[in-house]
Each structure stands twice: as C-alpha cells, then as structure tokens.
C-alpha cells in the first residue's frame, strides 16, 4: 500500500497503525458484554507455555488461508548499554543476515520465494521478529523464525554494513522535519534515559558498538523465558502447539538480567528549542511531557481523555485549530505507552507566519482541559465511540493478537479483554478529572519547533527562553 500513498490525499491523516502480526488450554470467546444483541465479537485464542519458559499465544481465524508468526523478545533499545545507543537495533537487523546454516541471500530467497514477509522491528522495550505467509508454508516460516532468532552468525562484514546503513539513516533524518522534531523532543524530555533516542540510536553510539557486545546482547536477551511467540491465522491449535514444541522445545532458558534505568528527569517550566532549517515554509510543532506507563491504573481514563483532546476529527484540537481557524491540516495528541513512562505529545504544523499563534492555541487547549476538565457530553460521546468501535478494532487476527500480546507483555490482568468494555463504560466524570489532574502538566513541558528560525524567533521568545540549534 505504501507505494500508492503518494497519490492519496486524505481528508485528515488517519492513524492507521500497522500492528505487527503478531496450553493450559481453555477456549475463550470474547463477547461484547452489554452491547446490543447480536453485536458480539467472537475470538478464539489459547495460551500455552513451554517448559523452557516460552510463552505462546495462538489465535484461530479461518476466513483466509494465511498465517502470521511473531516472536517478541523482551529487549529493545532501552536495554542498550550506555554510550552504545543503537545496539539492540543492529542486533535485530543482523538476525536475518546469516545463521549457522543459511547465508543472508538464502534467507531472503526462501521467504521471498513463497511470497512471504520477514521483518525485524526493534522498539524501546522489545524486539519483534514477524513473518507472514500462506498457511501452507507454516512450517517453513516457523523454522525460519527459530533459525534467525536462535542461531544468527553475526559476521563482521554484515555488521559494518548495518552500522553504515544506520548511521546514514540517522543523518538523513535531517531531510524530514517531523523526524528532526522527534529526535530533539526525546532528547530534551529524557536526558540520560535510554528513551532519549529512537531505537536506531545515535551516530556516536553506533560508531562504538562492537561485535562482541552484539553477541553478548543476543546471548543474554534472546531467551525462551524472555519471549512470547504468537501464531495467528488459519491454524489448528493442537497441531500448531506440537510444531512449536518440536521447533522451540530445545531452546535453553537462561538467567534474565534485571534492567535498571536512570530516572526520567523532571521538567520545570517551558523548555523551548527551535531547530533551524532555513528551507522550511511550514513549522513543525511538537510538544509534551512524560506520560504514563502501559499498565497505569488510569489507562481507560487517559484513553478517553486523549480522544477528547486530540484524536481524530471530533477532538478539541482538530476543531479549534483546523476547523475554526484553518491554521493546520493536522493536530493530534497521543500517549505513547511503554513499560516506563512514554511521552505524552501533541503534534501539529502551520506556515511559519502562524506557527506561534498555533502553538499558543495548543497551549490554551491544554490549560483549559487541565483547569476545566471535560463535559459529560464529551465523555459520553467518547465512550460510545470506543464501545461501538470495539468489533471494528477486532476485525483481523492481527488486531486481536496485538491486544492479547499487550495483555501478556505488560502484565495486564488475565481478564483484561473480557472486562475491556466494562472498564470503558465505568469511567466517571470524577475519574477522568482525577486522571487529568494527575497526568497533565501544562506548565512544565518541552516544546520543539523546527522552522526557518528567523521567521518565528521573536514571537517564540514571548513564551520564554528559547534554545536555538542548528541541524
């Protein structure tokens, strides 16, 4: 789909998040409790655990003859050693560049020939090896996942290739104002904490990584008792589990080292930075502060609050800045939830002449929400959106799997999905008010502006001290 995106001009940016496809045997059918009669989502899934600690999720879905396998390893860029930012990412990329029995081209040829896909995604908290194919190739891709996860060769020439590729990728972020803003925003927000850089790392960190460190990283983190294997699609769970046991049963468990991270720094007042990119006619605006963890008890309150503030075409930000003022094409807010506090951020953009006016409107909305809360009508609309939308958010096996993986990975209650709708309905005005007061902090935020600095500098100074940086 990506290839035709160029000729699409959507009314607004639809956040289509491409979720990675992601035995105690008990069948579970989830029903949309309390929904209209007939409005029932059924999903069949099972969980299991091998003796070596490998957790398994299987989701049955028989509409199409396809299957997806996802091996999630609980180690991401937050596990990068100090000064070696980018290590987890390179380790992940190297998995498919050769193993004990196959070289890089053989691996690619194998997956390409069957029309499948194999991708390696390193996030902050975890890394995923994801592969998809027609279900007749299930055994081939299951073996491939095991081969690349467990037996990578880590050859020096491949490592130099990926080091160079990653360094160029970091440098070329300077071609894109949204990437520039993202990198500076994280740095200002997180200081020495590993969330300060995107998983791809920094140029300095990438230069320092050695082959031995990658081998060590793999050895200590890619362990069955540190992983979750998910299989979704046109499968028979009993046969699938037998195949998994055969392929992964001899994977040796190991000791998992506890990750100790520095605290997330506090922000005092407005921390404003302008990054000068003189060719820009439109200013990229990114602001926010640390948000919440994925297992925060106020998760549902925050989800509804964020919908009201800045998600989609009925939100306050969209209405105020785009509909009423015509100052932007997009204004979104989001809580990026991770193991630790991911950022709460608002992203928008406006021509340089109206950039600071737009920023001020965003700040006003944030202050207004914090002081006055939401209305009952807004809360009710938000709830009816999420409740009504539930079956649509569970249409594909990958969507279902993503929710179950979340439950497993973030240690959410076992009945998380069963109670999902009840939890949304139970959010009260008091509850959402309490969450707003606790979570939002409009006086202490990081503000990143990527622009032609001379166009906005004077006006920006009206908000406080400004730190000017070059590209």
């Amino acid at each position, binding site marked *: 789909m990506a*290839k035709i995106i*160029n*000729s699409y*001009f*959507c*009314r*607004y940016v639809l956040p289509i998040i491409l979720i990675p496809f992601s035995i105690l045997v008990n069948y579970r059918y989830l029903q949309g409790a309390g929904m*209209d009669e*007939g*409005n*029932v989502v059924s999903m069949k899934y099972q969980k299991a655990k091998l003796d070596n600690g490998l957790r398994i999720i299987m989701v049955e879905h028989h*509409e*199409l*003859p*396809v299957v997806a396998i996802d091996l999630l390893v609980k180690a991401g860029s937050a596990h990068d050693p100090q000064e070696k930012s980018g290590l987890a990412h390179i380790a992940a990329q190297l998995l*498919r560049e050769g193993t004990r029995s196959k070289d*890089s*081209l053989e691996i*690619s040829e194998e*997956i*390409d*020939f*069957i*029309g499948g896909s194999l991708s390696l995604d390193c996030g902050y908290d975890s890394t995923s090896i994801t592969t*998809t*194919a*027609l279900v*007749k190739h299930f055994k081939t891709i299951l073996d491939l996942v095991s081969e690349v996860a467990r037996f990578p060769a880590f050859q020096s020439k491949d490592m130099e*290739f990926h080091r*160079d*590729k990653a360094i*160029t*990728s970091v440098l*070329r972020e*300077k*071609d*894109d*104002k949204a990437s520039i803003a993202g990198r500076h925003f994280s740095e200002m927000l997180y200081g020495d904490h590993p969330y300060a850089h995107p998983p791809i790392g920094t140029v300095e960190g990438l230069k320092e990584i050695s082959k031995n460190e990658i081998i060590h990283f793999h050895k200590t983190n890619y362990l069955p008792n540190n992983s979750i294997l998910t299989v979704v699609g046109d499968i028979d769970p009993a046969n699938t589990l037998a195949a998994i046991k055969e392929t992964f049963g001899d994977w040796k468990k190991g000791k998992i080292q506890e990750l100790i991270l520095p605290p997330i720094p506090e922000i005092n007042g407005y921390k404003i930075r302008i990054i000068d990119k003189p*060719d*820009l*006619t*439109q200013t990229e605006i990114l602001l926010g502060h640390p948000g919440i963890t994925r297992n925060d008890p106020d998760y549902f309150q925050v989800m509804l609050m964020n919908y009201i503030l800045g998600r989609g*075409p*009925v939100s306050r930000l969209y*209405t105020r800045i785009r*509909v009423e*003022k*015509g*100052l*932007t*094409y997009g204004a979104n807010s989001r809580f990026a939830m991770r193991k630790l506090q991911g950022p709460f951020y608002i992203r928008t953009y406006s*021509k340089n002449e109206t950039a600071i006016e737009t920023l001020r409107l965003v700040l006003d909305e944030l202050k207004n929400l914090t002081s006055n809360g939401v209305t009952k009508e807004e809360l009710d*609309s938000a709830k009816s959106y999420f*409740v*009504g*939308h*539930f*079956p*649509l958010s*569970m249409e594909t096996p990958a969507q279902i799997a993503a929710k179950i993986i979340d439950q497993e990975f973030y240690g959410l209650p076992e009945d998380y999905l069963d109670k999902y709708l009840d939890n949304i309905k139970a959010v009260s005005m008091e509850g959402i008010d309490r969450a707003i007061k606790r979570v939002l902090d409009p006086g202490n935020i990081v503000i990143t502006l990527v622009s032609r600095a001379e166009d906005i500098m004077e006006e920006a100074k009206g908000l406080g001290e400004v730190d000017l940086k070059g590209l």
Partner: protein
Amino acid sequence: MLRLSVLCFLVFSYLLIYMHTSTAEQVKLDIKEHRLENGLRLLMHQDHSSPIISFQVWYDVGSRNERPGITGISHLFEHMMFKGSRNVEPEEHSRIIQRNGGTDNAFTTEDMTAYFENLPSSQLELAVKLEADRMAHLRLTAETLESERQVVKEERRMRVDNSLSGKLNEGLYSATFTRHPYRWPVIGWMSDIDAITLDDCNSFYSTHYAPDNSTVIILGDIDFDETVSMVEKYFGHIPSAERQDELIPMEEPQNQERHKDLYVDTRFPWLAVAYHIPEAAHDDIPVLELIENILTEGRSSRLYRKIIYEDQSALSVFASVDKYKDPGLFVITVRSIKQGHTPDEVASVINESLEQLKTEKVTERELEKARNQMETNLVFGLQTNFVRGIRLGFSLARTGDPLGFFKNLEKYRHTTTGEIQKVARKYFTPENRTIVRLLPKGEKPETVKSTSQ
C-alpha cells in the same frame, strides 16, 4: 471476462470469483450488483463473520477531470463535503459517525474520489442517510470554502513543499506529462488552490456529484434485500446529471529522453527513473507488475540485492506500476544515495538491469517467485471489509471491472519469461525514459543549464 454492464438488466447480478491458490486452498470473493433507475450503481459483498460493515461511495472524478486554473478542485471539494448538508451541520458528519462507533474519511486520486464509513452493522442506515444527504444537498458557503482552502494549503505545504518525496513526485509527473492532466498533482498548484471560487465548487458539484457518476460499495454483515431497499429509499430520488463528454487531452508518445534536476536541502541525493506505460486495463500491466516484483520486491530481488547489498550505494530502492485509467508510468525510485556514490552511477546500474531484462530471459524460478508474491499480497489484502471495498472500487474506477484485480491472478499465472522480455523491450527504451534527480543545493551549478523539458 464478465462485464458488469451486460448484466445489469437483472435485478441482481451475481458475480462470484474463486481464486485457486497453487494448493487446494480457495479464496473466493463474491459481489452482487444492483442498479438504481437514476444510474447509481450498487455493489454488495456479504461477510457475516463480524457485526461490522464498510460503506463506501466512489465518485468517478479526480484530478484527471480538472483543467489548468482550477487544479486541485477535486481534492478541495472533497474537503467541502464535510462542511454540512441539508440535515447535517458543518463537521457534524464525523461526529455522528464516531458517536456511533464508526470512523470515516475520504480520499482523492487522479482518477476518482471516495468517501467511506466503517461502522457496526446496526448503523448501516445512518451511513446511507448521511452520504445521500451530501450527494443531494450539500451546503457550500464562501466562509467554509475560505477556511478549508487554508487547511488544504497547509496540507500542500506538509505533503509537497516541505517534503522530499512530494517534490520528487511533483517534479516527475510534470516532466513526463506535457498534455494530459496527470502532469499536475492531485492536490493542485498552490496558485490554483488560491484561485478556486465558490462558483467553481458549485459547478463541480452539480456536474460530478450525481448518482449516475457514482458507485456505492457496501461490505460486511448485511442483508441484500434490506440493503437495496435502504439505498433506494435514500438515494433513489436524487436526479441524475447532464454531463457533456469531456475531452481529456491524451499524451503524445515521448520520443526523446528527458531530464530534470531539483535542488533541495539534503546531503543525500534521490533519483527517479520513469517510463511511460499503458492504462490499467491493458494486458501489459500484469506483466509490468511481475517485472516490478522481480526488480525490487523483497531483499532477494535484483535491484535490492545490487544497490542496497552489493554496491551499498543507497538506503532504499523500489519500483511502482501506475494502474491508472489513462496511461501512467513505471517508476524506479532510489532514496538517499550515500556519500561516495552518485545518482549517475545508480542510474546506470538501473539501466543495466533493465537492459538485462531485454537481452536475457528471467529464470523460471524468479518468475514463480514474483507470482507467489502477487498471489500472497492479494490474499492478505482481503482481510478487512474496508480493504476489500477499496480494491473493488479502484479496480472498477480504473479498469471498468470491479473484479479485474482478482482476475489478474490468471494473467500472472500464464505470463511467460518470453512475454516479460517482450514487454521490457517495448517500454524500457531510452527515448521513453525520464530521469529526475533531487540534488543537494550546494551542488547547483552557477549558470543552470536548462535540462528539463
């Protein structure tokens, strides 16, 4: 080939297609068609696996139907469709849909414009009502046009003026097309976005937004009879429109290689190599799609292997085949050419690779791999009601046959290595080629030679 037009005298035309994958598995896609007296075409697809639907209205109008002076009106007008109709306040459309658990959006392309609502199936009538209201009774005011014009200008600044891929794309199509409307971008030129008037919008609306110029596609947990009566009830009274035959200027064959350089703020040059190819319905298109796969799909593909792994000269390479109503382009794009390498060096690697397709047949294994990739992509693309509808709608708009994309599987299967060679020889000629480069500003020569067409 089943032609829907032949079958529309039936109350329902029933189209069913099975895809036999190479083993015993079968994938099927069936649609029913109904046509209203006012010309509105209705396509339905049933899937009771989940209590949800996708409701889509496809208008047969896009930037292809525009003229210089008001380029971008199709897209600006699409925004105006959310600005209120007889029974709906401005921006209320999305509010109502979301309050009922749905999402909605719209998009404009060169050849068509589509609007959609994805909803719980209990809310089908709501979508029918809302879409009919804005097809028949849109409220267009100077005030909403003014504010939406500003929004669209910000969209253009975001997607094109401050984006390398936007600049490359715009530069490429304006260099390769000199007569046909594909020469301007879907979003339009900035000066035209500024110039479009309320009168332009009114006349655009009455000409193109009529039942006989649109197709409604409904997919998911529906009952055929109920759905037909519902669509009849809300759309049946909308009158069809008088439309004169449009004269769209066709592109003359290109008879000389063209070059265009754009100087931008980057350290890493980009490159696009493009060739004119025929319209989506042409028999050579599936063959070109196979070539696209052989060249750049997956890491074992020819150009990925050569440029990314062996030469290590760039960060990404991909090919694309335009499947447009009128003849489009086959494009190979290389992004972020690394320091120590040049666009010329990469262009000659691409050229060698295309020459090789002309002189040597691809291997049977490569062809089989490309077929498998096309087949799997197609099956994965059938996972949601929404995407099934999108595939049907595009196929209909561009080839006249909603199931054309599905039927192409047979063509992929029967294409031979000899045909691939023949098609490569036909299109990959120097005179049919255009090369567009994004180069670092600092490298701009003092006196710029006019190399662009």
